[in-house]
């Protein structure tokens, strides 16, 4: 394919949408090395995509103020600031503690959607400054893979900083020490026994003053 084909097929738009097969992607990326026009198209489509995702995130924020939080999307993260919804963590924190700390506002629970996982940038989790534990539900991780958490320097966090377990629906429940998020972006990946890894996305922590509106 040459430049005219790429333009006529809107290849830049498909590239940003992850809609190209491997061979076409490689051909297009090689073409981009010498074509500032196609690079410009890619930049524009990527800007559109990222802004749509950000807008949706903010839209959820607006909705949040009008109705109780739902647990289907981790972009509702801020709605859980100070909510102390430990019980929603699928019993992971122990049936004996079903009502533990619900009023203490020290645990923030988030759910990670497939869309958020596929985003190009880290997604910020907003929680209160006195949060002592961040719980994140990560769906869609193969059973034969282990969930690992790496710091911004790609070093695996220590076992004291996070733990993960599999829930009955196959999703993983990740418990993180908020301190780990204060040191920069945290990357999630699924590790297979053969050493191969699959990136699951990246998150950052943003603290809000207790009682203040989440952003």
């Amino acid at each position, binding site marked *: 394919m040459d430049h005219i084909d790429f333009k006529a097929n809107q290849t830049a*738009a498909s590239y940003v949408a992850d809609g190209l097969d491997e061979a076409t992607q490689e051909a297009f990326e090689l073409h981009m090395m010498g074509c500032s026009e196609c690079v410009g198209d890619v930049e524009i489509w990527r800007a*559109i995509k990222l802004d749509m995702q950000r*807008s949706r995130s903010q839209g959820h924020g607006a909705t949040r103020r009008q109705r109780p939080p739902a647990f289907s999307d981790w972009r509702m993260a801020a709605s859980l600031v100070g909510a102390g919804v430990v019980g929603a963590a699928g019993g992971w924190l122990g049936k004996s503690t079903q009502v533990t700390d619900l009023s203490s506002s020290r645990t923030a629970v988030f759910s990670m959607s497939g869309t958020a996982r596929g985003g190009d940038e880290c997604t910020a989790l907003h929680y209160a400054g006195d949060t002592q534990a961040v719980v994140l539900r990560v769906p869609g991780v193969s059973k034969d893979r282990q969930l690992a958490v790496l710091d911004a320097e*790609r070093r695996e966090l220590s076992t004291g900083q996070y733990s993960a377990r599999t829930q009955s629906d196959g999703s993983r429940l990740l418990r993180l020490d908020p301190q780990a998020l204060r040191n920069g*972006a945290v990357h999630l990946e699924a590790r297979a026994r053969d050493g191969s890894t699959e990136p699951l996305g990246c998150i950052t922590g943003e603290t809000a003053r207790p009682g203040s509106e989440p952003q």
Partner: protein
Amino acid sequence: MTYSGSTPAELCAEKPPAAGAERNDMSLVEAIAGRSDLQNELYVRYRRPLLQVFLHRRIARDAAEDLLQRTFLQAIKKIRTEGLDDPSNLGGYLYRTATKLATAYWRGELSHRHENDVELLSSLKDEALSLEERLDHEQLAKCVRDLMGQLPMQRDREVLERYYLHEEPRTAIRESLQLTDMQFNQVLWRARQRFGDILRRHGLADAEPDAAQSTQR
């Protein structure tokens, strides 16, 4: 943009731009080997496409900056020591280097961050910066909002949202909306055209890539 006012079909009738990239690459490799001032052209020409290669592999911007720096330094080192097998294909060499570094990054093989050359990054010319780096985020966000508000048909908005927000496959969107491949491309083409108009209306025409700078192959 060269295709302003042209439909996708008309585009096919346009002649491809003249190629000069191979000759440019050779002179650039010579400049790098000879440590002349022209070597800064390396960043101007290749930073933006390589950045997209990293972003496409879901590498965050700060890490992508680090990998960009590694890519360029590897290339400069190789040119000055062994030389390139094919100096006329510098872009191809940089691309391969970048994709290997991206793979190594995700495998956790790049254990420590490379020291970025802050002076170099701060002195990069505008033309080496991506659209998002050149524009204020709020400006860009407003332009995207305008775009979504100005699309003439609800169907066009739905296509963009499903394609980029919900990341549905093209074929699934096409089938559910009963669009042909060409009609789907036309929706994208209209949106792209309209976004260019919006940028210009906001006085951001300079932010649009200058096709005249292209060195298409």
